[in-house]
Structure formats: structure tokens, C-alpha cells
């Protein structure tokens, strides 16, 4: 009975402090939402991937080689620790998609006629499997099919080893090998121009001259077997067959991309919630300390009536728990909603048979425990102080607060300060912890706004670099196969052409020591007008007559430096293997690249004066005419229109970044608003008497408001620069974490990014302060003067 009356007091007190309790719950809720969202996303991605891998038997070790007879597979299977082996064909192909006026290429994999694959089994999304014995059928990866609106029954043309073949799409599929379906080395997926395809082994084998042989291998390990010795054994076995180094899942491109995302989520799942909850814990402390100060007499009476310390402590801890419970509900709901949104975003990048948001069931109780812990840590000292109060002591009003001149005043500038300013700085100095946490909250709000915008600006810079600095053409045209350089004259005569620049690209594998990377070498004329190669000091490079220029990142990955001899193995044509001097390093951001003088490249490939395409600038007025004319040239395989690539990229990426910006914006606003609201409500409550006195002795409401606002302004002036610093740190760490061989986002911090963060925090804080200042008009001028509280 008694405790239920105490509970009634609890509810009434809570209702009186509803605003502040809500602010605390919201800030705490933000931290929890972030935690529940990230942990659930980690759980969703990890468990979905794991299930997918298990159900579709994703291999554990992979290897590519030049060519080995199928009988080698049996020898691989004998290697200790190998459980199941699957061999097949994997080849690069060029495509002609009717609806696409841009380059398309892809990777085509083989499927055995007689049985479903042992490993890396496909998931059929639409259509049907390949009919055994039925030629000219292909299965298409879902990402490419979606991007090009391909459906079962549609026709596509594929250049298999230079021979054009008309194929019919039998089905749309997914593969555990291509959760992230992207051109090797590309930073961001462009699913319209790169796809994965599956065809019957026999057709591929005859097209690529691999009858009875294979050039790709995948295997699973026996339970308990260790990966490293197996990889070493495979490398020894495959070397005579042109083996290119076996690798485990940790180096598998698609696996890495999902793991990278999970890794970033792990950082977010700990970093941000810790800061949010820290701020929330302090806010709880501030609110409860205030309540306890107000209720000194009530505490004394409760104790005088015989309530134990424990009962008093529990009563006040319940306040914290109500706020924590509200925060858990808010954070749980928020986390689930945001998690669903982000899973929607992941659908753009990651292809699973089904990726559902899965709530990490541990996250919710964990969130409650963590925030309850934070709250208890926050309120414990205040509550214990109250519990220790002897009843008689508690009955007396609190002694007047002691103040002293603030530090800034002691430096001698004190005389210059107005009284309002002095009141503000002395109050801040008397409550340093409260000031520090308000600063921390505002700095956090400022800081988290920097991150998504730095991301956006980094991506924008990469794209601008790519499309404005490196590629200055309006469009590029690729040929079906290398052609005589004389086709250049034909190109030059097309309508609307302003400039033509030929290029020669060739797929190669570049190796240095034990490390190898597969990529395309771009061969350009010595004097470049449209395409440019940018050197390490952002200077345009002149391609040397001999030697190779590669991305600085590629050199780092290979462990090579300028002057070293690289092994270059052509993966097309006569497939010569040559040694080429590393002549220079290029600066780029997405993926890795290699450049060579076009003549040197042709010599390296043992070919004459050939090109594989050309870049153009054209008169916009004649663009339609130009494209129509191109269609009349049968040797043209693809056309890349820069603006449409750019637009496509902008749409997909902008939507994803926009979503993340929105989430961070909401969090930042809530924190800034909540922290300022709480701080000013507490100031207002603690100093109602002082403020009312000022009003009575003739200060206008505005002047009294200025006393409170001055404090906030001082705090904000400290917090915002700190927040910008903090945000710079967040952005640096997060970008460093996502930077890999395939994506390297530069850290771009623009004035407008900083300005936006400052603006959001300023607006949120100002609105919050205004809400509180409105309460100044309800200040009870008469009542507050009558008796000390």
C-alpha cells in the first residue's frame, strides 16, 4: 500500500518533469536505436550470409589457372584437408544488350549438364534452369538482369572468345560467390555494364578451347582442416598449369565486401552508442540531482517516518528506470524502423535469395541493461547523497551555493565583463561536469553530421576526378575485337565529331614476386587530350614510350616500386608473358588501373597497330545523328555515354547516402535539442528564484533570457569547434576503415559540410532554447520571492 503511494508520487513527479524525462529518453533512445540497428544489421547480414553459404555450399578456397586437364581435379581432392572439389571454366566476355547503348561485359561461368553444382550452388530467382542438351541458353545474375530489365526469354548477344553468339535467357539466378556483383577492381557496382552469366560447360569449353580442361577451381575444407596448408598444396600442384595463386574466403571479392560492411557496422555499433549513452547518463544524473535537491524535505520526511535508505534509493532509481524503459522502447522501435530502411538499401548492393531485417534478440535486453547501467551510473552518486542525508539535515533548506570569480576573470579581463556574462561564466564554472556534458552532447551532435557528408563529398570527388579530370570525353566506343588503327579515320568522319582519341585495352595479370592482380591495361597515345593519367602530385602524366604506369595502390598491394620489373601476362590474344618495367605511379581512387603507351602495349601483346576503341568529344547538337551512325558500324560493341553513367551512379548512390544522411541528421537534431533543452530546463529550475529576482528588480524578460542564453552560447562556442574536430576524427576513422583496394575514398572535408553541421546544431539548439525561454513568461515573480524553495 505504502509503496504504491510512493509509486503514485513517482508518476506525478515524472509528469511534472515530462519534458526533461522525454529529452533524456530521446537521447538515450538514439544511442539504443543506433545500437539495435547496427547489431541487428550485423546479425541479419551475418546470419543470412551464413545460411546462404551453407544452403548453397559456398566454397572455402578458390583458384584460377590457365588450363588444367579435368583429371587434375582428382589430385586436388587427394590433398589432405580437402573435402569437396569443383572445377569449371570462368572467362571474361563482352556483351551486346539491345536496350543498352553502353559497354557491357561480364564473367561467364560453366555449369555441368548432368547435375547441379556440388559447390557454389545457384539460387533460381525466375525462369528455369538450363535444359540439358539445349544450346544457346544462359543464366543471368540478378543484379545485371534487374539493371537491364532482362527477363527469362529475352535475347542477349555475347562475344565468346571473339565470336558473337545469340543467347536466350533461361533464368535469373543468384550465387553465393556474387552477393556483391561487381566488375573486378571496381569501387562501386555498375550492374548495368557488368554481369555474371552461367552457361553449359560444353559450350564454353568449345568456345574457349578448354575441352576436357578447367581454369577455375573451388573447394571446401574437411572439418577442422586448416586453410593455409591446403592453399600451399594447391599452389604447388597448379603451378605447372598456370595457377594464379589460390585464396581463401578472406580474399574473395564478394565475401570481402560483405565483411567490410559488417566491420564498419561493428565500429558503429560500439562507438556511437557509447557516446550517446554517456551523454544520456549524464542527463539522467542532472535531472535526478535536480529532483533530489527539490525534494530534500520530502526525503527527510520519508526517512523521519521510518523509510529505509534502501527504499528511498529504490524510489529514486525507479525514475531512472522509467526513462530507461521509455528509451528502450523508443530505441528498439527506432532501431527496427531504421534497420528496415537500411536493409532496403543493402538490396541495392548485396544480392541474397532473401535478406530480411532480423532483430538481434540479444540487442534489446542488452540495450536495456547497457542504458540502465549508464543511468544507474549517472544517478547513483546523487541518490546516495540523498540517502545519506540525516533526516534533520534534510529538513533545512540547502545552504546557499558558493561561487567564486571565474577563471577568465582571474586573468584580469574580469573588469571588461558585463554582469550577465559574469553570472554565466561563474555558473558554468561552478557546475563544470554539467557544462562538460552539455558541450559533449553538442559536440557529438555536430560531429556525427560531418560523417555522412564527408562520405558524400568523398564519393563526389572520386566521381568528379574520374569524369572531369581523368575522362574528359563525352562518350567512348568499344570495338568487338581489336581492329586496325585505320578505323580511326572512319570514326573521325562520323557526324558531329570534334576530337577522337583511340585506345587499346587488354586484360592482363600483373605480378610482382608472389602477388598478382588481374586487371585491364589501358593503352593510350603518347599525347593525351581526352583521357588523362594523373600522377601522385595531381599533375598530368605523360606516358613514357616504354614501361607501365600503375595505380599507387596497386604498387603498394604488389609491393613494387618505380624501377621494378613486373611480370605481365596477357589474358587474351596470344597470351604472351612479358617483363615490363614499372615506370610511374598514377593517382586514382576507385579500383586499381594500369596504363601504357599504346604502341608499347601493342608490342607487348605481339600485335600490330591496333585499337579496341576510341573516346570522343562531339557536338551535342549532333549526338543523335552520331549514335545512329555508330549503329551502322558492325564492329562497334559498346558505347559509354559519360552523362548517363554519371546520372545512373548519382541516382543509386545518392539515394543510399541520402538515407544515411537523414538518419544522422535526425540523431544530431535530437541530441542537440535534447541536450540544450535539458540544460536550460535545469538552469531555469535551479535558478528560478534568481531569474525571478532579476525580473522583479526591473530586468525585462529579454534581459533575463540573455542570462540563460549567454551560458548556452558560451557552451555552444566551445562545443561546435570541438564537434567539428570530433567529426573530422569520426570521418577519418570510418573512411580509413572502409578504404580497401577496391574503394579508396579521399577524406574530403568542405566548408559547406562544416557549415551545415554548425547550422543544424545551431538551429536545433536555438529552437530548444526558445521552447525553454517561453517558460520564462510563466516565471512566478511573486511566489518565488516569498519563501526559499
Amino acid at each position, binding site marked *: 500500500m505504502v509503496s504504491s503511494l510512493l509509486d503514485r508520487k513517482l508518476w506525478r513527479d515524472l509528469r511534472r518533469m515530462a519534458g526533461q524525462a522525454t529529452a533524456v529518453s530521446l537521447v538515450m533512445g538514439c544511442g539504443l536505436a543506433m545500437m539495435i540497428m547496427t547489431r541487428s544489421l550485423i546479425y541479419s547480414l551475418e546470419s543470412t550470409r551464413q545460411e546462404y553459404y551453407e544452403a548453397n555450399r559456398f566454397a572455402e578456397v578458390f583458384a584460377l589457372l590457365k588450363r588444367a586437364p579435368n583429371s587434375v581435379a582428382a589430385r586436388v581432392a587427394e590433398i589432405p584437408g580437402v573435402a569437396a572439389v569443383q572445377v569449371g571454366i570462368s572467362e571474361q566476355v563482352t556483351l551486346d544488350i539491345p536496350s543498352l547503348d553502353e559497354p557491357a561485359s561480364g564473367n561467364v561461368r560453366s555449369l555441368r549438364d548432368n547435375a547441379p553444382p556440388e559447390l557454389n550452388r545457384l539460387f533460381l530467382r525466375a525462369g528455369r534452369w538450363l535444359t540439358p542438351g539445349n544450346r544457346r541458353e544462359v543464366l543471368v545474375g540478378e543484379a545485371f538482369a534487374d539493371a537491364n530489365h532482362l527477363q527469362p526469354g529475352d535475347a542477349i548477344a555475347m562475344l565468346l572468345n571473339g565470336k558473337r553468339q545469340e543467347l536466350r535467357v533461361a533464368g535469373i539466378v543468384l550465387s553465393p560467390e556474387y552477393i556483391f556483383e561487381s566488375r573486378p577492381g571496381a569501387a562501386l557496382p555498375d550492374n548495368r555494364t557488368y554481369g555474371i552469366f552461367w552457361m553449359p560447360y560444353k559450350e564454353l569449353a568449345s568456345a574457349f578451347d578448354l575441352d576436357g580442361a578447367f581454369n577455375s577451381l573451388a573447394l571446401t575444407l574437411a572439418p577442422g582442416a586448416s586453410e593455409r596448408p591446403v592453399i600451399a598444396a594447391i599452389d604447388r600442384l597448379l603451378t605447372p598449369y598456370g595457377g594464379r595463386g589460390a585464396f581463401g574466403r578472406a580474399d574473395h571479392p564478394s565475401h570481402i565486401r560483405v565483411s567490410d560492411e559488417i566491420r564498419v557496422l561493428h565500429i558503429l555499433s560500439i562507438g556511437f552508442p557509447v557516446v550517446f549513452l554517456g551523454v544520456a547518463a549524464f542527463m539522467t544524473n542532472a535531472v535526478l540531482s535536480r529532483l533530489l535537491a527539490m525534494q530534500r524535505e520530502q526525503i527527510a520526511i520519508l526517512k523521519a517516518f521510518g523509510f529505509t535508505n534502501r527504499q528511498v534509493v529504490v524510489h529514486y532509481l525507479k525514475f531512472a528506470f522509467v526513462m530507461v524503459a521509455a528509451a528502450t522502447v523508443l530505441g528498439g522501435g527506432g532501431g527496427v524502423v531504421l534497420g528496415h530502411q537500411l536493409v532496403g538499401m543493402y538490396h541495392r548492393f548485396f544480392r541474397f535469395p532473401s535478406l530480411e531485417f532480423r532483430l538481434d534478440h540479444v540487442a534489446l535486453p542488452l540495450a536495456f541493461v547497457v542504458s540502465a547501467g549508464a543511468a544507474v551510473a549517472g544517478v547513483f552518486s546523487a541518490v546516495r547523497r540523498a540517502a545519506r542525508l540525516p533526516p534533520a539535515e534534510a529538513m533545512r533548506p540547502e*545552504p*546557499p*551555493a*558558493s*561561487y*567564486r570569480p571565474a577563471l577568465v576573470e582571474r586573468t584580469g579581463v574580469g573588469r571588461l565583463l*558585463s*554582469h550577465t556574462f*559574469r*553570472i554565466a561564466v*561563474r*555558473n558554468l564554472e*561552478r557546475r563544470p561536469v554539467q557544462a562538460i556534458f552539455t558541450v559533449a552532447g553538442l559536440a557529438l551532435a555536430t560531429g556525427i553530421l560531418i560523417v555522412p557528408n564527408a562520405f558524400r563529398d568523398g564519393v563526389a570527388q572520386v566521381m568528379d576526378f574520374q569524369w572531369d579530370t581523368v575522362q574528359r570525353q563525352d562518350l567512348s566506343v568499344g570495338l568487338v575485337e581489336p581492329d586496325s588503327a585505320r578505323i580511326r579515320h572512319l570514326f573521325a568522319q562520323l557526324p558531329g565529331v570534334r576530337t577522337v582519341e583511340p585506345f587499346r585495352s587488354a586484360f592482363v595479370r600483373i605480378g610482382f614476386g608472389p602477388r598478382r592482380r588481374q586487371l585491364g591495361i589501358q593503352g593510350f597515345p603518347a599525347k593525351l587530350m581526352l583521357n588523362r593519367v594523373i600522377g601522385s602530385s595531381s599533375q598530368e602524366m605523360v606516358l613514357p614510350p616504354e614501361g607501365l604506369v600503375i595505380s599507387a595502390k596497386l604498387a603498394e598491394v604488389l609491393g613494387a616500386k618505380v624501377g621494378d620489373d613486373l611480370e605481365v601476362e596477357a589474358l587474351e590474344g596470344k597470351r604472351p608473358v612479358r617483363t615490363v618495367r614499372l615506370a610511374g605511379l598514377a593517382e586514382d581512387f576507385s579500383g586499381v588501373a594500369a596504363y601504357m603507351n599504346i604502341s608499347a602495349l601493342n608490342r607487348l601483346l605481339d600485335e600490330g597497330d591496333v585499337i579496341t576503341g576510341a573516346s570522343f568529344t562531339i557536338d551535342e547538337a549532333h549526338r543523335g545523328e552520331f549514335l545512329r551512325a555508330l549503329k551502322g558500324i558492325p564492329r562497334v560493341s559498346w558505347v559509354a555515354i559519360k552523362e548517363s553513367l554519371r546520372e545512373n551512379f548519382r541516382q543509386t548512390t545518392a539515394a543510399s547516402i541520402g538515407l544515411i544522411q537523414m538518419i544522422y541528421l535526425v540523431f544530431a537534431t535530437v541530441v542537440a535539442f535534447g541536450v540544450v533543452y535539458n540544460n536550460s530546463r535545469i538552469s531555469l529550475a535551479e535558478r528560478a*528564484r*534568481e531569474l525571478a*529576482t*532579476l*525580473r*522583479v*528588480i*526591473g*530586468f*525585462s*524578460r529579454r*534581459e533575463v533570457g540573455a542570462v540563460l542564453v549567454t551560458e548556452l552560447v558560451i557552451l555552444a562556442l566551445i562545443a561546435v569547434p570541438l564537434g567539428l574536430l570530433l567529426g573530422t576524427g569520426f570521418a577519418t576513422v570510418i573512411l580509413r576503415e572502409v578504404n580497401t583496394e577496391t574503394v579508396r575514398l579521399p577524406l574530403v572535408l568542405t566548408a559547406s559540410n562544416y557549415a551545415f553541421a554548425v547550422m543544424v546544431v545551431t538551429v536545433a539548439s536555438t529552437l530548444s532554447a526558445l521552447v525553454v525561454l517561453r517558460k520564462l513568461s510563466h516565471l512566478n*515573480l*511573486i511566489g518565488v*520571492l*516569498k*519563501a*526559499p524553495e
Partner: protein
Amino acid sequence: MGAAEVRALAGVDLDLFEGELVVLLGPSGSGKTTLLNNLGGLDVPTEGELSYRGLDLASATEDELTQFRRGRVGFVFQFYNLIPSLTARENVGLITEIAADPMAPEAALDLVNLSARLDHFPAQLSGGEQQRVAIARAIAKRPEVLLCDEPTGALDVRTGIVVLEAIQRANRELGTLTVIITHNAVMADMADRVIHLSDGRVHSVHANERRATASSLRW
């Protein structure tokens, strides 16, 4: 619970004059504080007339009331109500910052014999000293009206006398209309006029032939 109308004051008809010292006496609930709040522009009467030198306080806007308090009225409260974060000198200086023709904070504090405690914070001052700072703060703007609400209510006799002396001195030297409300009848002796309130009405008005000095009072 319905809101029953309670009249704090009814039928109060009163003139107060420049330079006089008035003591308002009455038991708790007699309406003295309400009257003082109305006089000081903290509150407006729901009906009736209230004017100060041509300014209609009964229908004044909030801004006009703020200006009135700021320019003409000094308040002294039972619980001093100093700004805890400001020193004695600064508490007084706060007012001189917004007043039209203030005296120096030091001069005001000298008037209440606190020249030695200029740079002490309220927490470092005794109750009587805090109250004298409050009086210095009230008189530093050279107010035309000084309103004191139970100025000695929280003080012992000896300290109370010192505070009353300071009020009396301000009244005498600055010619300020001073109104003290109290339930301590002894203070009536130091007034020019004593007004008794009960049940929200003026019960009696009594003029003293001779004002007693504050130092001669005992209770």
C-alpha cells in the same frame, strides 16, 4: 475542486506620498503582500484604480510595468534574493547597469555600512549583511519607491535593527517613499504612518507624531 473566487484586497483606498515611511501591519492573509505587489508593479488589480504619478498601473502593459520597476521601485525581500554568483558590489552594480541615474555601487554599500565587504559573495555573508546588500541594491538606482516585504523576518533582533537603520537612513537621505510590510507591530513606531490591514481591507490608518529611530526599537 472548483476555483472559488478569493478576494485578497477589497475596498482599499489609499494615497502614499513622497518621502514618507509607511508601515503596513496585518496578520497573515490580511492582503499586505498583495497590496505591496500591486504597488510594486508585480501584479495588477483585477478591478479598481491604481496610479503612480499619472501612470495607470492597473492597465499598464508588461513592458510598462517592467519599466516602472526598473526606473522607480526598489525591492527588499524577506529572503534577500541576492544573485549567488555575484559579489556584493556586483549585485548592486547589476542594477546600476540598467538604471538611469544610479549611485556608485560602493556608495550604496557605504550607505548600509558594508564598505568592508564589497567583494564577498552572498554565501560568504551573514543574513544581516546579505539583507543590507539587498537594501543597497534597492536604493542604488535612487528609487522613488522602496518596498520592503518583511525585511527582518529571517533575522534576529540585533541584526534586524541594523537592517531597519539602513532602510530608515535611505528614506531620510534619499527622500524615498518607503513601505515596509510586517506583522511585527513594534516597527510601527518608526513610521510616519501606520496602516493596519485585515481581511483585505484597510482597518485603520494612524499617523505618528514622532518617528522613533530604528535603533530604539526592541522586540
